[in-house]
């Protein structure tokens, strides 16, 4: 798994590549927590190059969405979610908890 963060004026664009499972999810969580610690609560997660995500990754997304939406200070949105991962998120009932975008520019512009 590889994560890169790009800071825009109104939001952070966090790109996650590779595989998020119980082994790598702690690092994924940490990146998201760090953004929150820096007062960044508007977060777009670009999944274009994400190959795999287990429920360990879903848990990190849920915890971050909760923290970001608190006091209406922000939100996590998902960008370019690969089909297999979208299907798994759907099965877990997560799709209604996150807005999704097909285009990172559109996602960044939505904040």
């Amino acid at each position, binding site marked *: 798994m590889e994560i890169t963060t790009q800071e825009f004026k109104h939001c952070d664009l966090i790109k996650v590549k590779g595989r998020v*499972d119980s*082994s790598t999810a702690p690092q994924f969580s940490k990146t998201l927590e760090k953004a929150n610690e820096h007062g960044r609560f508007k977060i777009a997660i670009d999944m274009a190059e994400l190959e795999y995500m*287990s*429920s360990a990754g879903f848990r990190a997304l*849920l915890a971050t969405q909760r923290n970001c*939406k608190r006091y209406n200070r922000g939100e996590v949105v998902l960008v370019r979610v690969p089909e*297999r991962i979208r*299907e798994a998120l759907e*099965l877990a009932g997560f799709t209604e908890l996150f807005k999704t975008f097909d285009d990172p520019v559109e996602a960044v512009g939505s904040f």
Partner: protein
Amino acid sequence: MPSYTFPARFEFLDEIRETVAQVARAGGFSEKAIYSIQLAADEASSNIIEHAYEGESDSPLDLTCEMQGDDIVIILRDWGKSFNPAGVKDPNLSADLSTRQVGGLGMYLMRKLMDTVRYESNARTGNLLIMTKRRE
């Protein structure tokens, strides 16, 4: 039946997913089904490490995987704490963000992704989780 033993550590999840994917691919499953099988094996193994062994250790996690006719059969065995799968309630998927529970999500996904999920536990065989999925 081909069998592998992994230390109960999350870093081996990659190999566990790769092992079941190879059997599924050779068995003629679609890419979508292969992803489902990998996810189910991952969730099952992660649960064993987290709950049966209560964290990562060098305790053994045995994986057996093969095609039996049109079905892929995956058996995971551990020697940790046993549990009652009937006691794992499905998560409430319509709960809103603030009340959404994530416990039990792995078990729920396994049941959804595979055709059958069976659990057996006794002192002689250890804890066995047996999952099957039929090729479409």
